[in-house]
């Protein structure tokens, strides 16, 4: 307290000294808190370390271009699983993204009322449904009707998981767009639907895309809902109504197998999966910032 004496002198308050016990408790708890951070960072570093270390050692051209070899034969790869994952995710995005964005537009532009609240609550609830349960639903919806497993069923399952996330983030991003911009458009005689699509949604594009990528990254590594929808496949398959391999499924099958060769490939697959997810997200982010979508 070194306040200069322009006004009345400030009375000096002397705090009672902090007792030895309280001081030690303070230091101990600070230490404990730092320790928890280290304990949490440890597995993170370990997981990434193992992934890179084990994965890079097992990735080669064959892994990226060949289909799996039968048990016992060395070599082979996961090319068909990488392609299958892309097909399934493509179907999921085609189904889930428009519906999710539509629901987001509804929530922000038409849903500032009780109906909107219901949809908002339901999408939060949907977000918490275990992925394996979504798998059962897609099985009942698609697989039971078609009588066989398919990429389409896997896509439907993943789309169901994407919709609530996309809807809620789209809503939040659209709400950030100032009301005045909408009114300016109305003032020019632009109709409401044009305003929503070309003014509001366009202003919020980068935020909406971030939400879509968040949903995409979340489902890209999903395994549980694909177990009994896409099912997996040892061979190339481009037909949407046939069982299809997926990277995550292949990692699971190989990880619980008793063969060393397959274990190595599982690590490589895991590394490829993470690189693909991070790559896809980064690519879209960059496209939003610089490319065709810039300024949107």
């Amino acid at each position, binding site marked *: 307290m070194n306040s200069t004496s322009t006004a009345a002198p400030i009375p000096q308050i002397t705090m009672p000294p902090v007792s030895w016990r309280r001081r030690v408790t303070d230091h101990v708890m600070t230490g404990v808190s730092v320790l928890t951070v280290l304990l949490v960072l440890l597995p993170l570093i370990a997981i990434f370390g193992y992934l890179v270390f084990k994965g890079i050692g097992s990735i080669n051209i064959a892994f990226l271009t060949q289909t799996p070899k039968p048990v016992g034969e060395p070599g082979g790869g996961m090319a068909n699983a990488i392609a299958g994952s892309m097909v399934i995710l493509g179907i999921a995005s085609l189904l889930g993204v428009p*519906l999710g964005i*539509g629901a987001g537009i509804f929530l922000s532009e038409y849903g500032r009322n009780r109906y909107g609240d219901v*949809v908002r609550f*339901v999408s939060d609830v*949907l977000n918490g449904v275990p992925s394996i349960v979504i*798998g059962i639903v897609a099985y009942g919806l698609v697989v039971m009707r078609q009588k066989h497993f398919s990429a389409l069923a896997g896509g439907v399952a993943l789309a169901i998981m994407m919709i609530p996330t996309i809807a809620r983030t789209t809503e939040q991003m659209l709400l950030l767009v100032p009301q005045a911009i909408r009114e300016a458009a109305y003032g020019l005689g632009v109709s409401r639907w044009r305003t929503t699509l070309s003014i509001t949604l366009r202003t919020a594009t980068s935020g909406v895309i971030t939400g879509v990528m968040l949903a995409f990254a979340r489902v890209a590594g999903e395994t549980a809902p694909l*177990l009994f929808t896409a099912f997996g496949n040892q061979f190339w398959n481009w037909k949407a109504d046939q069982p299809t391999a997926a990277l995550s499924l292949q990692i*699971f099958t190989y*990880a*619980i197998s008793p063969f060393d060769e397959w274990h190595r490939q599982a690590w490589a697959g895991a590394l490829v999966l993470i690189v693909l997810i991070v790559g896809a997200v980064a690519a879209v982010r960059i496209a939003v910032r610089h490319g065709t979508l810039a300024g949107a």
Partner: protein
Amino acid sequence: MSNQALPRPRFNAPEPERGTKAALKIETRTAPLLQGKVSEIPDSLFGWAMRVCGVAVVALLGLIVYQLVVGSQLSWHAFGWKFFWQSDWNPVEDQYGALPFIYGTIVSSLLSLVIAVPLSIGVAVFITEMCPIKLRGILSFTTELLAAIPSVVYGLWAIFVLVPILREYVQPVLAKTLGWTGLFSGPPYGIGMLAAGVILAIMIIPIISSITREVLTVVPQHQREAVLALGATRWEMIRTGVLRNARAGIVGAIILGLGRALGETMAVTMVIGNRPEIAKSLFAPGYTMASVLANEFTEASGDLYLSALIEIGLALFFVTIVVNALARIMVWSVTRGQPARSVA
């Protein structure tokens, strides 16, 4: 907010003579906006299309419930409530009881909470209250990175790294020191309930800690200053000024983590051992509701078998919905209306 009520604007400026260059210029510029009557049909069509999307979300939930309820009818009629407290799971004799799976789900989730809660609160407290600003961004980014790893990759890591560590180092020590409780006895396989609890804990720490962090950030700064002004040490300030105020939100964060742990499938399936038995020891293999679905759904040959599995799915669905709804309400009560951020 609709523009339909507003009259269309009219220009009162003197109009240039028709056919001159100036008139053409104005006409072409204003034509799309001002000329003619704008049809209202596209507007209402668009509005209804968006409403359909909104309804579709609700319909999705309805569809999920419908599929699960219809699919589990057979098993419900065969076993009734008995299904949930019988521990006999025997596909060969068509006898199904879900108790071992319910037990496994509850025990592995609670175990993961016991490990994860103190750690996540510690991390959240460190990031919001103690950490230098520069480190703050990096730390919250890395903890969120943990949430972006797919569950099957966690499982892979658990099988080849975590399980051997547990088997060689952790389990012998636990057996020696705490073996008398009965919780840590039996052969140390590595694989089992303990491994499932640990990997689940690693997976839910990012969720609990990031939501706790959000809740702690909302606690007003003057609360902290008031407690410090009374002469409290930093820890006393955190305990009485911050944590106590954020109690409801922290409990909400924990329950949200629980919801995630209950439904987590792949990583648990890979390390829990998959044996439908109820054992007191955490070293023993177990089974969870989600992992029995993952393992047996495609192999379910009989109709009753499939139906019993779907009933487990239905039970899992209801439990997670209740848990999640509870958590959201608690987090909302603190952050006031801001939706709890979903953590991918």
